[in-house]
């Protein structure tokens, strides 16, 4: 028998576990579909059993965090096993309905003995009997929430719902993956109009829609979640238009802990592509080497993310297919590109001051019909960035006589403080004339 080294064993194991994985016959179709609608990103996660969406909540939970460790036999498990959620009285108006609660426990037992078999697929091992933390009436039907200790992560939560025929089904379940995290809530029922959330002792808030300000800034308006008797029943907006909602711990410092749920089992993000059909990197400085497309893309997107112009967790986004790059006279690097978050694409210029924080300048909504689709006025009188692919851009300061002139290909950096006249020559039709104000 060949003796494998440990490194080789890992190599073999990686091949072994991936060998049954083959790409779907529909992959090309799916990719083609995405290309057609160019709605590239689908970051929506769908969780749970039967395609139901579960919101997983990251919390620095005072209660849940105490002593929970990743070991099977350490003090963390004991702490989790003694947790109030595992031993407190069952809340909800159906807590005393033994017929329903027995049915829930039977469903759980059958589910565990079936597909779950005492584990989640990531290896989380469930221990002991599930404790019913809540059982009550909801607009989606009679529901229940069970809590169970796990070997690895402390607690796992399972959500149940009785269907119209009376059968109870598991709607979603999940472990606490690391200390301080727990399952926040689950959308229950086929109509997806109820978000059920277990009270784990943390104030929570909820937002049902996102807004994008005219300047491109993304925001969510949150309202407090009111828990009653151990759980909150939150009405999910319904309607023909699918959209995303947010659910998070109160006092969150950033959006990194936000989680989201969908009101429909389909991605709401399939907007038409409004971006400019340009490709590549355009330099505004003749002869200046340009960074790679990937590098520009990364720095541009990082800056937009940090400045609140993107929306992590969104279902789709369309990144720029082009970037204009250059250096200002004070060595500040400039990257201009576009970004489509919703139904329109927006132009931004990112200024990277050496040693400073990036500055993002909003350059307006893309209009593909105008002669000069990208014109961004830089702050502090530092001029304009103008872009039009496959075009020779000639400019001069307006006024009697030619005072200054310049030429750029695809993109140009123009001086501030003067009214400017531009000539856009695509080589085909008659050149276009465009003015920029002082």
């Amino acid at each position, binding site marked *: *028998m*060949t*003796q*494998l080294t*440990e*490194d080789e*064993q890992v*190599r*073999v*194991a*990686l*091949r*072994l*576990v*991936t060998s*049954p*994985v*083959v*790409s*779907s016959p529909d*992959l*090309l179709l*799916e*990719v083609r579909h*995405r*290309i057609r609608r160019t709605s*590239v*990103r*689908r*970051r929506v*996660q*769908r*969780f749970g059993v039967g395609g139901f969406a*579960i919101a*997983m909540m*990251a919390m620095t939970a005072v209660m849940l965090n105490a002593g929970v460790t990743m070991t099977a036999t350490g003090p963390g498990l004991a702490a989790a096993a003694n947790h109030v959620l595992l031993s407190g009285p069952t809340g909800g108006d159906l807590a005393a309905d033994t017929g329903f609660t027995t049915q829930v426990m039977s469903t759980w037992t059958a589910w565990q003995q079936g*597909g779950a078999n005492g584990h*989640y*697929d*990531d*290896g*989380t091992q469930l221990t002991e009997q599930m404790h019913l933390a809540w059982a009550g009436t909801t607009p989606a039907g009679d529901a229940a929430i069970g809590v169970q200790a796990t070997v690895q992560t402390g607690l796992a939560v399972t959500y149940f719902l009785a269907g119209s025929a009376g059968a109870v089904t598991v709607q979603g379940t*999940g*472990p606490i*993956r690391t200390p301080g995290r727990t*399952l926040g809530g689950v959308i229950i029922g086929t109509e997806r109009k109820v978000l059920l959330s277990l009270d784990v002792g943390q104030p929570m808030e909820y937002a049902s829609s996102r807004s994008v300000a005219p300047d491109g800034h993304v925001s969510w308006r949150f309202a407090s979640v009111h828990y009653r008797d151990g759980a909150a029943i939150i009405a999910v907006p319904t309607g023909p238009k699918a959209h995303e909602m947010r659910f998070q711990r109160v006092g969150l410092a950033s959006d*990194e*802990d936000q*989680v989201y749920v969908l009101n429909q089992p389909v991605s709401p993000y399939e907007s038409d592509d409004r971006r400019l059909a340009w*490709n*590549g990197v355009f330099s505004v400085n003749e002869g200046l080497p340009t960074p790679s*497309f*990937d590098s520009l893309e*990364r720095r541009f*997107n990082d800056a937009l*993310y940090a400045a609140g112009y*993107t929306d*992590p*967790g969104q279902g789709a986004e369309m990144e720029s*297919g082009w970037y204009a790059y250059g250096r200002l006279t004070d060595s500040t690097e400039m990257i201009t590109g576009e970004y489509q978050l919703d139904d329109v694409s927006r132009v931004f210029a990112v200024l990277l001051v050496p040693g400073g924080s990036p500055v993002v300048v909003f350059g307006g909504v893309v209009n593909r019909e105008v002669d000069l689709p990208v014109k961004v006025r830089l702050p502090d009188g530092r001029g304009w960035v103008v872009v039009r692919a496959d075009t020779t851009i000639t400019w001069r300061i307006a006024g009697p006589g030619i005072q200054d002139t310049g030429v750029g290909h695809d993109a140009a950096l123009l001086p501030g403080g003067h009214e400017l006249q531009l000539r856009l020559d695509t080589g085909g039709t008659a050149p276009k004339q465009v003015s920029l104000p002082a």
Partner: protein
Amino acid sequence: MVGKDDEFDAFVRGSSTRLLRSAWLLVADRQAAEDLLQEVLVKVYFAWGRIETNPEAYARRALVRQAINRHRYRKRRPESTAAYGVDRTSPDIADSVALQRSVIAALHELPPKQRAAVVLRYFEDLSEAEAAVLLGCTGGTVRAQASRGLARLRAVLTSEDTGDRAAEVVC
């Protein structure tokens, strides 16, 4: 004459399974891997004219970067899909589900760059220098990242006794 679309289709048909396997290890989640691969393939399509030689290498680089960036943008968001990420549709997998479960769970616990280093070194069989280029770091960093990740995987494989099983398969 073969056009861009035909070339791209042939590329997807020929490379998608290999890329999907890498993606799966990189994100430790089957559904997310499929999603990631689709994202990357769309990107490859739009960049087709700029890709001079090896589209699979380009796609692999994009996979790695996208996997790391995806995690960076959503680093505090629980990745619960791992709980449902094991493919149970194939009969082959049913036999090795425990190994799959253990390895994927162990990978899932690794920081994304560490995970990427392990995948590039021990699945893609890239050299430290090649992995360093893809990860945008030095060879020493790759060595350190891969070593830590490997230690974790070894621990899992040893505890599950799957190392022996891996050995049996190739004997």
